[in-house]
């Protein structure tokens, strides 16, 4: 179950012990002072900052399922969209308070993830992916047609950001910090759940469902629970979408949006909970600025994606490991050429859900 190479890996010492924390601290500092270092906060905070955060949160729910359960779900955007529609229906159609709408949105989104899990949890790998994709497309078609509930193609608008006195989300700086806080909360929650006994059991389900069954675990129940939890995270992302876009329409749950989140997860690192925010940042920057570089901006976006897959197959979050392996390999080859290619602690360069799923 556990990775033996990690168990027996030498403990980090010296620079390698404090460097990651130093980098995390610097980046968190940058995130916090971001509103004061950009020249146009009105543009950068919502359009780059907040958008990267909600894209990252939804992608993080996808990565959580892939990393800890071995399931690649393409319904995470749908779950986020259902949550967003929940808010829109409460606020626009029923004229209710935003907080109540957000609570309803999260409950509805999480429950929809539970239902999706009941349908899809008995499958895995490519079959799970296809079922979740199909469910997402069914919901997109329904959302495009159900005019009484979703407003069809017009959607539900306007959904104004709330003002709670001390916290006024109409202030863009406050809105940005609110989104940062939500993003940190989701990340910490995912890490906490992953590190709990529940998370360890999920890794067991991922690595050897047969053994877990033999030990008395209800494998499907764990998969359903994990998918529901990931749905909860995606639902929170859906609330941020509504706050950012001030409306919800079928575009939120379209195939393009689903692919965007998948691209974010792959660019950031399909196995890294934190890397998704880097992937989201890259995609957001490209969608905003690629047009200024070339008329063929979609091609540019595709080229960036291909280059990242070619040179950083584990995503941007895997670059650190790639560099470390490269350095250690060179060191070893300098001291012992015979053992240069036999590194038992080397990590796999790519975490590919489909092939991993097939192996399991």
């Amino acid at each position: 179950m556990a990775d033996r190479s990690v168990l027996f890996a030498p403990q980090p010492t010296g620079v390698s012990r404090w460097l990651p924390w130093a980098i995390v601290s610097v980046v968190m500092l940058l995130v916090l002072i971001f509103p004061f270092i950009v020249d146009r906060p009105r543009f950068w905070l919502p359009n780059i900052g907040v958008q990267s955060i909600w894209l990252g949160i939804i992608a993080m729910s996808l990565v959580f399922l892939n990393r800890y359960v071995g399931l690649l779900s393409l319904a995470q955007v749908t779950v986020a969209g259902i949550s967003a529609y929940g808010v829109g229906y409460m606020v626009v159609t029923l004229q209710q308070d935003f907080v109540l709408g957000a609570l309803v949105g999260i409950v509805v989104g999480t429950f929809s993830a539970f239902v999706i899990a009941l349908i899809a949890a008995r499958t895995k790998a490519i079959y799970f992916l296809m079922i979740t994709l199909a469910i997402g497309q069914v919901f997109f078609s329904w959302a495009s047609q159900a005019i009484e509930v979703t407003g069809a193609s017009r959607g539900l608008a306007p959904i104004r950001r709330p003002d709670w006195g001390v916290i006024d989300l109409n202030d863009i700086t406050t809105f940005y910090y609110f989104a940062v806080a939500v993003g940190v909360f989701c990340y910490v929650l995912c890490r906490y759940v992953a590190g709990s006994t529940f998370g360890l059991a999920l890794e067991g389900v991922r690595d050897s469902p047969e053994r877990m069954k033999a030990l008395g675990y209800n494998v499907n129940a764990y998969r359903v629970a994990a998918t529901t939890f990931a749905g909860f995270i995606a639902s929170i992302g859906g609330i941020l979408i509504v706050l950012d876009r001030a409306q919800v329409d079928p575009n939120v749950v379209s195939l393009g949006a689903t692919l965007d989140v998948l691209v974010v997860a792959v660019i950031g690192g399909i196995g890294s909970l934190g890397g998704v925010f880097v992937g989201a940042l890259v995609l957001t920057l490209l969608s905003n600025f690629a047009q200024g570089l070339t008329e063929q901006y979609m091609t540019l976006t595709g080229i960036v994606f291909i280059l990242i897959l070619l040179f950083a197959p584990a995503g941007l979050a895997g670059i650190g490991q790639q560099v470390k392996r490269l350095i250690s390999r060179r060191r070893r080859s300098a001291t012992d050429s015979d053992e240069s290619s036999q590194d038992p602690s080397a990590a796999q360069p790519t975490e590919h859900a489909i092939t991993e799923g097939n192996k399991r």
Partner: protein
Amino acid sequence: MKRQKKGLAAALALGGSMLLVVTGCTAAGDSGDGADGGDGVITIGVLSTSEGNLAFGMDEAMAAIGVSMEARGGTADGGEIAGQQVEFVYAGTDGTTASAQTQVRRLVENEDVDIVFGPVSGDEGETVVQYALTVPEVTFVNGSASPVSMTLEGAENFFRFHGDSAMWMGGLGNYAFEEKGYESIYLLAEDYSFPYDNAGGFFAEFCAAGGTITGSSWVPVGTTDYATIISQIPAETDAVYVGLGGADAASFLSQAVTNNVAKPLVGGTIAVDITALSGDANIASAAAGMISGGPVPGEGYDNPVWADFVEAYSTQPNAFPSPSIFSILYYTAFESLVLGLEAADGDLSDNQSAFRSELASLTWDSPTGPITMDSNRQAVVDNFLTEVIEGEDGSLVLNTIESASGVAQGTTVYDRFDTCADIG
């Protein structure tokens, strides 16, 4: 676990670096300071479609701007208006609300444009109006988006210099009932805001005249298989309303021929595209006799302003053989914008009040007839009823049946409907 931490650290480091790089790249000085910034440059952000099924929208927008700017010694890249230097920032969308929202925000909040010109599609337009309400310091001039609601939202900074999609069908409902004798019509249309209003404008009049709707099919954009829908058309229906556009309209017409649909057709405004319909002999036979309404006149339209525009359009890069509805609407809107700027002497100070005042009271003879403005900053325009007929050489020709002057906007915003009672 350690491996993951280091990977995360690397990712965060890279992200932080990218933030620094991109923010550094745009720091101070690379944006277009507006005329109210005091440097005498007016920056106009142009929103149009450059991807998806309306990917030609950007070329048509540039052609329209080119016609107007070349008349003043400039180009689609820039020039001078009322003694002020004018620059353009073009932003392409894929026709979706998400894309329009991203690009309009970029134009206003990062490029600092003084005026936003666009967008193309109805759903985009409704999103842009919602955004316009939040940035009252910027003036928005609509491109070709035509939902009724856009000028009824109370955005004082939003102007539309062409009719809405319900206005475009004004007169066609009565004509279909009284002149053509259609008493029952089957409704087939794409499922988004433009066809709601376009069909609503037609059926409101048709139903009021005594007509009935025998059934309805609202299909997603991009539908290619119409066999099932064709089989649902009741035998006693007098005609079929085709609220489709582009490739969807061509697919339906082709299958209408294959499935022997003998019913006469009433076209939505963008269903009748002579260039597209003439390409296939089968389609041509189905399209002949189709009546429609819209802002584009048919053959033989006698207006020197129109003739000048068509000639100037033909010299633009990537121009179609004849102007599309998008280039006509974009030209009308952009020329209005320029006339407003000239009347205000390029003065965008005081929250652009002089410029907006000139736009709100603008009157001029456009290629498709005189334009005046109502109190909602919505144009009162001429409208054309047309019929597709076969010319002497067998090719299809769009013939003008009637034209109506001074068509004003109504206040009904239409949603999807299935019966006359739904729009009553």
